[in-house]
């Protein structure tokens, strides 16, 4: 039964509690108010920050690509050092750590920090640590160290860390106390997620009164595959060596990039850019000499997202799509199946009276070609005819920029929004851009402005157009799926808007069949893929060879598709000054596709020079 009288006694007990609390509050707030306010003004806290451990980075199979190792470090509390005990501490350090020189010890005492880092204790007997902690000015704090187990392999994707500058301190507040910020790559892109909050050691008159623990950064899961990354890097290196052997170029051929993308999701399976660097060098501080040397070779550029190259014939796929979608074919052809005569050159007159002759890469011509054959043999004349048709139909009207609109649909000249920083967007030229350039960059354009010849250059991926390998990869993916979305490396990526593009299944099948022709007998990449035997009938691609200004060698491109029956991967390879796409980029891609199909790997061999 409920006892009412006992409830009353509880009530009385609680009333007594209240009285105690109120009297304590009254004393504190009303009677001692002034005195305590004075005491607070005399409080002077100082804070020492211990960096938080950055989140670790894992590949799709759980391999650790970037780790944070916590190790104990000995610190000296400088507030507790005075003239009397300075000598004792100097001797203690000298005695226990022979490798610290006397001048270094002198430097320690000059520091203006609250605590100064003496040495990493992990290599020493724990006894030393216990003994030293008996002296009040010694403290031990755990400090994280960034380590990249695969050294150079992921340098551009993962990036590196360093001391934050003013701008970085403003943009990434955590970096101030961590004294570390992601400089490039994923380390930069996910800085806010991965960095964590530094621990705060609160010190009053030299005594530690409170230690607020740090909050470690979040781990990041990637979709990259380390095995593939290894094969891709090897293949690209082999290809570059071959290119140097076979071409006599003024410059060393040393730059290139490969992107391997999954078609269904858009995830990046592998991304390599050469030359590369070892991000571990930055952890302990890199020498200025080494830094400048790496910088000279452009090793810090991720050419997969920052390399701006004219795409050459790999861009023909845009005109291919336009032709089928709009029904625009060369003047003499009725449909895609209809043949035209390619005599190796095209001469024509424009409305303004000028007459020009355009020379195909094959001087004797490709003979009879239709759209599929033009793709297979990379016939320029067929595509120039399409450009002329566009120019004659829409030139100088509002619909003039038809080809540009189609290329923008596929993501050219805009950021792919991959989860990496400092991506470049490139340009797709049109009349407006040329007019703009006449004022801002007159050295790039002729005084006549935008002409039909510029459109003819554009349709075969030459002239002012520039693209990045990742844009090309994503454009092919968009054409094969009908979905445009951002490629991504990490599962943290939030750019997951999918834009539907009107592409029919029929078109995809047609395109796949024609891409397949490129690696088949008679196709530009046949020689490079021959070694794969019957498998070539299930592989496709497109070669590209883009001319460069001056005496620079051509840019070598290949876009591979694996497979035709079940499209899973796109492999985009670029070798700067690598010459013909079919000779260098195609065999590199072939070795990567062998890996993706789990076939036996054969060395990269120099292919046939076309285009």
């Amino acid at each position, binding site marked *: *039964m*409920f*006892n009412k009288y006992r409830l009353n006694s509880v009530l009385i007990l609680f009333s007594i509690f209240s009285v105690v*609390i109120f009297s304590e509050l009254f004393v504190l707030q009303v009677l001692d108010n002034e005195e*305590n*306010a004075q*005491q607070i*003004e005399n409080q002077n806290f100082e804070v020492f920050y211990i960096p938080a451990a950055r989140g670790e980075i894992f590949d799709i199979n759980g391999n650790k690509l970037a780790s944070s190792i916590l190790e104990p470090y000995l610190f000296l509390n400088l507030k507790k050092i005075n003239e009397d005990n300075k000598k004792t501490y100097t001797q203690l350090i000298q005695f226990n750590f022979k490798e610290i020189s006397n001048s270094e010890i002198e430097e320690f005492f000059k520091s203006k920090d609250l605590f100064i880092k003496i040495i990493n204790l992990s290599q020493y007997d724990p006894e030393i640590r216990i003994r030293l902690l008996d002296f009040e000015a010694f403290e031990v704090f755990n400090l994280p160290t960034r380590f990249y187990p695969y050294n150079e392999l992921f340098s551009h994707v993962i990036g590196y860390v360093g001391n934050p500058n003013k701008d970085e301190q403003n943009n990434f507040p955590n970096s101030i106390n961590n004294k570390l910020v992601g400089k490039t790559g994923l380390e930069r892109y996910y800085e806010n997620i991965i960095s964590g909050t530094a621990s705060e050691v609160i010190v009053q008159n030299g005594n530690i009164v409170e230690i607020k623990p740090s909050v470690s950064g979040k781990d990041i899961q990637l979709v990259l595959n380390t095995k593939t990354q290894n094969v891709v890097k090897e293949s690209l290196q082999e290809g570059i060596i071959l290119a140097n052997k076979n071409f006599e170029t003024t410059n060393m051929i040393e730059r290139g990039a490969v992107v391997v993308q999954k078609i269904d999701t858009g995830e990046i399976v592998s991304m390599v850019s050469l030359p590369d660097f070892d991000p571990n060098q930055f952890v302990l501080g890199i020498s200025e000499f080494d830094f400048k040397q790496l910088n000279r070779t452009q090793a810090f550029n991720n050419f997969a997202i920052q390399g701006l190259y004219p795409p050459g014939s790999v861009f023909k796929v845009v005109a291919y799509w336009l032709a089928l979608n709009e029904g625009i074919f060369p003047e003499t052809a009725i449909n895609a199946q209809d043949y035209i005569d390619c005599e190796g050159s095209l001469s024509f007159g424009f409305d303004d009276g000028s007459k020009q002759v355009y020379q195909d890469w094959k001087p004797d011509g490709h003979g009879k070609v239709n759209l599929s054959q033009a793709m297979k043999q990379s016939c320029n004349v067929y595509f120039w005819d399409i450009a002329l048709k566009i120019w004659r139909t829409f030139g100088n009207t509002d619909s003039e920029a038809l080809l540009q609109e189609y290329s923008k649909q596929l993501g050219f000249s805009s950021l792919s929004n991959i989860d990496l920083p400092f991506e470049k967007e490139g340009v797709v030229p049109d009349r407006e851009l040329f007019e703009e350039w006449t004022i801002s960059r007159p050295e790039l354009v002729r005084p006549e402005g935008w002409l039909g010849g510029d459109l003819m250059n554009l349709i075969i991926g030459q002239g002012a157009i520039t693209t990045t390998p990742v844009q090309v990869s994503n454009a092919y993916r968009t054409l094969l799926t009908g979905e445009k979305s951002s490629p991504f490396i990490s599962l943290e990526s939030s750019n997951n808007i999918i834009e539907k593009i009107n592409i029919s299944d029929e078109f995809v099948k047609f395109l796949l069949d024609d891409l397949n022709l490129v690696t088949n007998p008679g196709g530009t990449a046949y020689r490079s893929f021959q070694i794969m035997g019957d498998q070539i009938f299930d592989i496709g691609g497109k070669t590209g060879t883009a001319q460069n200004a001056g005496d620079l060698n051509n840019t070598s491109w290949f876009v591979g598709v694996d497979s035709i029956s079940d499209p899973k991967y796109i492999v985009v390879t670029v070798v700067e000054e690598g010459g013909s796409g079919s000779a260098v980029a195609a065999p590199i891609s072939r070795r990567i596709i062998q890996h993706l199909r789990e076939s036996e790997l054969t060395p990269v061999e120099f292919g046939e020079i076309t285009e």
Partner: protein
Amino acid sequence: MINRKITLLGPEGTNLYVIFQFLLFNVISWFTLFNITSELSFSLENILVRQIIFTILGLIVFFFFTYIPISNIISLSNILMISSTLLLLGVLFTEESLGARRRYDLGIFDFQPSEFTKVVFVIFIANALSKKNNNFLTIGLVITNLLLIYIQPDLGTTVILLLLVFFMFFLTDIKFKNIVAFSLLTFIAFFVLLEFNLVNTFQIDRITDFYSNEVKDFSQQQSRLQISLGGFLGENLSNTSNIDIFVPVQTTDFIFSSFSKSFGFLGCVILLSFWSIFGFRVYSLIIKTESNFEKFLLSGFMILLYLQIFINIATVLGLIPLTGDPFPLLSLGGSSIIAISSIFGIINRIFIENNLVI
């Protein structure tokens, strides 16, 4: 029970006083948190935005319980107790944070099952006492839950629940010698645990340090100074210069300290008066209702709320060692607000069923 018409504010005869009181405490919390951050931004990171969202969720829970007849709660009491046990078991398998396993990480906010256990304890014990079914299973479940919270480790909540059990038993006709026996048993159990090294020495050290050292804990020292800064009228009314002072866990365990700084002695008197008025209204309901279950339930809830308030203020004032208990409806924290909303909802229901209406 009379069949009641359902209206927007609850079943017919809703007592507006309880909801008013509930909202008032919440709004006081908003103002206190605003004084701490003094920034307005609409992101989930902002503590004020979070607290307002918790209040809205709390209101939903409040009305949910207002619509549930007390008879249903009686029949649910065993299921609630078992689910509390399971939740406390599950939390032991979560990732450790700050040296304890206390919460489930639900993305934007954490769920702390021990807050749920507090409410369930009152319901379960009230049911057991009113039916006099003090069999072994009942006692076993209570002890299991206490142990599970204790090993999280969460000494503060364990002590509050032990005191709650003690007071609720005290309210029955149980003889004094049995109460003494109960207390002795608890003490013996504690020392047995100590002997077998099952007690987290860190927590015991904190207690022994507290009573042996002349110097108070750093955070308590700081919070005393902060309370003192409030003066009689508080910082907001008395234009004193804003002095910042470092106090840890300002928004949760030590929120009373910031409240006192902002609103002064007067503010503290007003806040605690509201709690007293609320207590007296519920007291009159305890006297009026004829159901033993409701009597135990209401007194249990009030004892739980007041114990939390007393222990929280005593901690902040440095009168007892650090416990880490929140101040009901003032501290930032979703689990605590939701749990207390359900208490207010049930109290409101009992007011309605007893036709005590304003």
